[in-house]
């Protein structure tokens, strides 16, 4: 059988892969997109960003209903129909996924379902339900993503020990849930389950939750966890796990060295993500991996095999969909002969807890660690009229400014809708704006976006809604 010819073959149909396939097609290339699952969209759409946000939204409704009593509005206890909730969530995923199929069709991108396997540097074998197919490609873009890590000590084959993938299915609301890992996934899903009714115990080996974010931004989220979780344990390790009847027996080691066995109905393991590069046949190419298994690429997304590119989670770095989509553009531009590269672009990070945490550029703790001469200006949301009307004054906006040039190096926000606010912040940092640029930009009133302007004004000591003191 003659191989199918492709100018560009993309392996993986997530937000990196489909963005690459579409852009390459838009640039006039003939493209085949390989997806091992039935549905396009990858982890982000099917088992990550989107379903978790749907569940977070639903659980937030419950939380807000409970919190509205002091505003004079009292609801009864909610009844939760898990199946309906799941169906609603899944309907979103289906809508988005079929949308991607339509977009692929409109661009004449051929979507092939099956597992891709490199035979050599120019040939990909696809194991599909219709049998084997061979693709002879000019350029390949690997976008196979990542999956939740499940350390061997936790991997008992017990479905009640879940990663985010299973947790998002919400098969049940367990009575006692142990969340291992206080990163953004553990915090997001821990919040969902706690509001749905689980008693959540969260264990984090490090001394802080969401350690990548500045502590002052994490504080309101930690407060939420303290109020809504059964317990938050820092500096704590899980040393063993075993099945005990319908429960999971867990060995806990506390910071003071005390060891204790505890029983949980379910366990969510959210201790990071590992690349999904296995079984790709990379050994038949010149593609190299780093010690953690991520594909090594240069700043033009090229692997060591010059016509094979890799983007997104499988190359490591920040494992975020929008970073993968940007890398997709770079890879395609390099393939089409443009002088494109990863030009130190700003990648915003958002944690969809309640309240949300979002930041872009350098964080204050990074700046201090690197010894950069920076000034930090802050605006607490207790001074924001809009925050008061939302009844959410537990926010903070801060700007990290390079002292000499007054250039904004980073912006961090915690608060209601921080994920939406970070857009402006990202533009400012990406454009090399100075703190004065932002201070002198008019922001609509009354909005939370004013907190960005006011924190910039606070840098100069004249934020309208802060007491007049120099920073």
């Amino acid at each position, binding site marked *: 059988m003659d191989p199918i010819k492709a100018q560009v073959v993309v392996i993986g149909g997530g937000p990196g892969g489909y963005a690459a396939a579409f852009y390459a097609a838009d640039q006039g290339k003939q493209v085949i997109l390989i997806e091992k699952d039935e549905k396009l969209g990858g982890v982000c759409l099917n088992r990550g960003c989107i379903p978790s946000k749907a569940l977070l939204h639903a659980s937030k409704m419950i939380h807000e209903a409970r919190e509205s009593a002091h505003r004079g509005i009292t609801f009864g206890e909610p009844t939760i129909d898990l199946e309906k909730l799941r169906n609603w969530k899944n309907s979103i995923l289906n809508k988005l996924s079929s949308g991607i199929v339509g977009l692929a069709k409109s661009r004449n991108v051929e979507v092939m379902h099956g597992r891709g396997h490199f035979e050599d540097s120019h040939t990909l074998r696809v194991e599909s339900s219709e049998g084997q197919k061979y693709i002879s490609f000019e350029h390949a873009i690997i976008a196979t993503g990542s999956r939740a890590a499940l350390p061997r000590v936790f991997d008992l084959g017990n479905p009640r020990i879940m990663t985010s993938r299973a947790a998002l299915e919400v098969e049940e609301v367990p009575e006692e849930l142990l969340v291992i890992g206080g990163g953004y996934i553990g915090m997001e899903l821990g919040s969902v389950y706690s509001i749905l009714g689980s008693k959540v115990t969260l264990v984090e080996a490090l001394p802080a939750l969401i350690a990548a974010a500045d502590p002052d931004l994490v504080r309101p989220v930690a407060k939420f966890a303290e109020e809504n979780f059964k317990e938050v344990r820092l500096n704590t390790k899980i040393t063993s796990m075993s099945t005990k009847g319908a429960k999971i027996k867990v060995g806990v080691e506390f910071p003071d060295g005390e060891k204790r066995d505890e029983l949980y109905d379910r366990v969510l393991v959210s201790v990071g993500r590992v690349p999904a590069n296995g079984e790709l046949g990379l050994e038949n190419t010149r593609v190299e991996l780093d010690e953690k298994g991520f594909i090594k690429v240069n700043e033009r997304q090229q692997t060591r095999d010059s016509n094979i590119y890799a983007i997104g989670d499988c190359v490591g770095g920040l494992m975020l969909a929008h970073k993968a989509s940007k890398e997709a553009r770079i890879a395609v531009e390099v393939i089409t002969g443009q002088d*494109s590269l990863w*030009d*130190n672009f700003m990648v915003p990070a958002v944690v969809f807890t309640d309240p949300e945490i979002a930041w872009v550029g350098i964080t204050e703790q990074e700046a201090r660690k690197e010894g950069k001469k920076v000034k930090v200006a802050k605006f607490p949301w207790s001074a924001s009229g809009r925050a008061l009307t939302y009844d959410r004054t537990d926010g903070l906006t801060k700007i990290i400014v390079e002292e*000499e*040039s007054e*250039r904004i190096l980073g912006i961090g926000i915690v608060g209601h809708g921080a994920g939406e606010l970070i857009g402006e912040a990202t533009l400012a940092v990406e454009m*090399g*704006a*100075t703190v004065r*640029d932002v201070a002198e930009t008019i922001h609509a009133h009354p909005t939370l976006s004013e907190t960005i302007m006011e924190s910039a004004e606070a840098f100069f000591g004249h934020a309208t809604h802060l007491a007049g003191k120099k920073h």
Partner: protein
Amino acid sequence: MQVKLPNLGEGAGSSPVASVLVSVGDTVEKDQTILELEMEKSVVPVPSSAGGKVTKVYVSVGDKIGVGDPILDLEGAGDAGDSGEASGGGDSEPAPKAKPAAAPAPARSSRAGRESVSFDDYFDFEEEIDPNAPMPPASPSVRRTAREIGVDLRRIHGTGGGGRVIMSDLRAFVRWCQMTAFRQAGEAAREGVFQPRSKPSIDFSQFGEISKKPMSSLRKVIAERMVENKNTLPHVTQFDSVDITDLNALRKKLAPAYKEKGSNLTMTVITLMAVVRALKKHPIFNASLDEVTEEIILKEYYHIGMAVDSDAGLMVPVIRNADRKSPLELATDLKTLAAKVRDRQISGDEMKGGSFTISNQGAIGGGHFTPIINKPETAIMGVGQSSLQPAVVDGQIVPRLLMPITISYDHRLIDGGTAARFTVDLKNAFTEITEADLAL
């Protein structure tokens, strides 16, 4: 008080400083020439608007300055308060050409006096850029453009807030690079004429006593122009002599009347009149070639350049509309312009726009010579010293006063026959000048 660059005509734009003739501590008189600007291939002296002691000099050779830019601070002139402030402190230090990260502030503040500072304040030309040095802030579109055209943004001191490089900075940088490249090529060519880089300088002292002096900026400009004009135009020079015996007698007769008016009726004045008459008959001698559009431009005006000898070197002030001026007006113009040249008060505008040039060496001596055409004109007249020569008049050899004249012309536009006819008509123009033409 502060001396600023006055409007030297031509108004807009800025010109490089060719030389600075004063330094801190000097005392200058009002109208004394304090610096020279390179304008349109000529060097224009700039007079001081006041007198006093120089406390600060804002410009140096090579800076581009425009109208209104500060040149000097003077003490003991006009208002002294101003000068005291301006001369205080060490802010006269030139902006350091330091690393871009360290320099944004001076680059930004110097922006106020647009183009009054050297480009070096904006751009970093240290050959090596530290690969670990941080990139200046710039938007993604600027970064992409810079990458595509191969510009390292670290060479640019951005004019945006915080040293941010904006698209106009990038454009200015590219323009600067191009300008510098061409200027250096020009300088290399110029040096090549006088001092070929490939050959070492000759040590003339091995042959005897010597002394050295630097080439003035005016001399460099003259040299450059002469090489260009001589090398790019196919010159042919026509020789002849004009019998001015009777004309000279007439001139002597009328001279006292001119003297009374404070003027001199010189043979140059008469030559001007004759030339204008001949030019009117032969427009191609009052023309230019536009080498770009390949068009011949015939001029309806008669602006005659007069080569004037000065201590500093050759200058060519222009007598405007010579065809519309009386002999007395021509004589007055000539006297005024010559004085301005001698005092280095001549402006750039007064040396522009000539349509034909006369180089008269009659007052000094010598016979025929082959002048170099003053591009973009098409011809030039050379006048030697008149002398009594044996001439044949009515079959008799008699002494006559003969004035040697030559016409160098651009053979691209003017054929030999045309030139001969012009010369004949020019000679006739002299003889046709009557007492009525010259009388006051």
